C-alpha cells in the first residue's frame, strides 16, 4: 500500500506496514491454516498487535491510541487481512466501541473504557443485529427498561463478532417504541450478571473469528454505562458505519492483493495449461484504482468531510473485487488451489463475508441510489 497521493503520511504508513508484517510473520501466518480448520481465536496475536498500538491506530494518544491519520489505520487493516482476515475482523470490530465512545461518550467513560481497548487488556465488540433485524437494523427488539440508576436488558442479539471472547460490548437496545428514535447504546462488560453467550455460528469462512449470540436475561446495566442520551443509540451505531465500511474496503484490497501475490507465486513454479494471465490484468487495474480511492476516503475521514457515499462505493467495489479475484484464482490454480495448503480456498471463503458484512452490497447500492437521486436530479 505505497502512498502516492499524500506523501506527508507515507513514512507513518510504511512504519505501520512493517510492524504489522513483523507481527503477522510471527503470530498469524504460521497458524492461519490450523486456526481456520480448528476455528481457533488467537488472543495472543491480538495482544501482540494491540501492544504495538495497532488495535487503536486513529484513537487519540490521550486515551492510549497512536493518534495517527486514517490512512495509517486502513494500511494496518489491509496488512492484517493479508495474513488473517479473521484477525482483521477482530481488530476492526475492536475499533467500533472506541469510535462510538470518542463520538458520544463522556470524558469519564472515555478514560475508563478506551485505554484497555487500546493496550490489549480488553477486546471490544459491537452488537446491533438480532435474529429478525439485520439490514433493517432499527427494527431491533432487545428491551432496556429504565429503573433507578440503570436499565434492565432482556433479549437476544446475534451475529456479534468476537462474542464470548471480547470483554466490552457496545450494545444497542430499545428504550422506547419509536423505531429509530427509541434505541439507546450501552457498554456492557463480559462478566455482567444476566448476560450469557448463546451458540457460536459455524460458517463458510472467517473461521478464526468467533461469531455468536448475546443473551440478556434481566441484565442490569448502570446509567453510567449508557453511551450518549436515551434514544441516541442508532446514531451511536451509525456513527461507526462509514469508517467500518471503509475498513471492509481496506481488508478487501488486502485480500485481493494477497490472492494475486499467491497466484503469481504459484504460476512461477507451475503454470497449468490454459491459464490466462490476462484475466487478472483487469483485477490488477481495479485494485490500483481502489487503493487510490481508499486514500481519498482516508483523507476525508481526517478532515471530517462526509464520506458516506465514498464508503459505500469503496465497500461495494472492493468486496466484489476480492470475491472475483479469489474465485478466478481458485479455478486457475486447479486442484492445487482447492487443497487447504494453498490457502487460496480460505481467501475465497473469507472473501464472501466481505460482500455481506457492514451492510450487504445490496444495501450499499440502496445508499448509492439515494445519493444519485440527489446528484442527478
Amino acid at each position, binding site marked *: 500500500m505505497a502512498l502516492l497521493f499524500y506523501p506527508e503520511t507515507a513514512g507513518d504508513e510504511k512504519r505501520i506496514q512493517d510492524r504489522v508484517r513483523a507481527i503477522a510473520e510471527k503470530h498469524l501466518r504460521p497458524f492461519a491454516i490450523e486456526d481456520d480448520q480448528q476455528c481457533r481465536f488467537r488472543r495472543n496475536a491480538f495482544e501482540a498487535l494491540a501492544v504495538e498500538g495497532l488495535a487503536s491506530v486513529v484513537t487519540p494518544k490521550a486515551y492510549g491510541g497512536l493518534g495517527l491519520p486514517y490512512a495509517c489505520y486502513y494500511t494496518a487493516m489491509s496488512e492484517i487481512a493479508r495474513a488473517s482476515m479473521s484477525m482483521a475482523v477482530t481488530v476492526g470490530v475492536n475499533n467500533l466501541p472506541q469510535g462510538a465512545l470518542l463520538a458520544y461518550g463522556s470524558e469519564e467513560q472515555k478514560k475508563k473504557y478506551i485505554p484497555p481497548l487500546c493496550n490489549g487488556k480488553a477486546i471490544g465488540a459491537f452488537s446491533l*443485529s438480532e435474529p429478525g433485524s439485520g439490514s433493517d437494523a432499527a427494527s431491533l427488539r432487545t428491551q432496556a427498561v429504565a429503573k433507578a440508576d440503570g436499565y434492565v436488558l432482556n433479549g437476544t442479539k446475534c451475529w456479534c463478532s468476537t462474542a464470548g471472547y471480547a470483554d466490552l460490548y457496545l450494545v444497542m437496545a430499545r428504550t422506547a417504541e419509536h423505531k429509530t428514535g427509541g434505541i439507546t447504546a450501552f457498554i456492557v462488560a463480559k462478566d455482567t450478571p444476566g448476560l450469557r453467550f448463546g451458540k457460536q455460528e459455524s*460458517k*463458510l469462512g472467517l473461521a478464526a473469528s468467533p461469531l455468536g449470540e448475546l443473551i440478556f436475561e434481566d441484565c442490569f446495566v448502570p446509567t453510567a454505562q449508557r453511551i450518549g442520551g436515551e434514544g441516541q443509540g442508532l446514531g451511536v451505531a451509525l456513527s461507526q458505519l462509514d469508517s467500518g465500511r471503509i475498513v471492509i474496503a481496506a481488508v478487501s484490497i488486502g485480500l485481493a492483493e494477497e490472492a494475486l501475490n499467491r497466484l503469481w507465486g504459484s504460476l512461477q513454479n507451475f503454470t497449468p*495449461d490454459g491459464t490466462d494471465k490476462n484475466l487478472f490484468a483487469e483485477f490488477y487495474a481495479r485494485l490500483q484504482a481502489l487503493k487510490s480511492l481508499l486514500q481519498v476516503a482516508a483523507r476525508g475521514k481526517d478532515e471530517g468531510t462526509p464520506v458516506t457515499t465514498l464508503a459505500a462505493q469503496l465497500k461495494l467495489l472492493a468486496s466484489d473485487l476480492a*470475491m472475483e479475484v479469489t*474465485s478466478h484464482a481458485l*479455478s486457475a490454480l486447479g486442484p492445487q488451489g482447492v487443497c487447504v495448503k494453498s490457502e487460496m480456498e480460505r481467501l475465497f471463503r473469507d472473501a464472501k463475508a466481505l460482500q*455481506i458484512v457492514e451492510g450487504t452490497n*445490496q444495501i450499499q447500492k440502496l445508499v448509492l441510489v439515494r445519493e444519485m437521486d440527489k446528484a442527478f436530479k
Partner: protein
Amino acid sequence: MMRNLNIERITISGISLGVASATLKYSKHYVQERRQFDKPLSEFQATQQKIAEMATDLEAGRALTYNAAKAYDRGERDMSLGAKAKLFTAQMATRAGLEGIQLLGGYGYTREYPVERYMRDAKLMEIGAGTNEIMRLIIARQELEL
C-alpha cells in the same frame, strides 16, 4: 478415452444443474419468508433481479447440457459440446451459490443453511474433470481449428 472424458464433462454439467437448482429453490423459499423493512425480501427489486438472473442462467445451462447429452447419444464426435456445457454450468452453479448466499445474508454464510455448501460443491465443478481454463482451451481449439 476422449469419448469418456466427454461424458464425464456432461455428467459434471448435470451435477452442476442439480446444485444450481437446489440453490435457486432454497433462495426462493428464503426470500419469500424473510421480512425486513416490513415486507418480504421477495418484494425488493434487487432480490427479484437476482432470482430472475439465477433462473434464466439455470434454464440456459439445462438446455446446453441436454443438447450435449443428446449429441452424445447420437454418437456425434463434437467434443466441444461437453466442454461448453461443463464450462457454462459449473460457472453458473457457482454464480448461483454466491448470489444465493448473498440473498440469505449472514444466514447464508453459516453452515446452518445449505446454500454455502451448494456453493462450495459448485466451485469444485469448475475444477474437477478439467478446470474452466482447460474447457476454454478445448473449445477454442475446436472453434479455431487449431
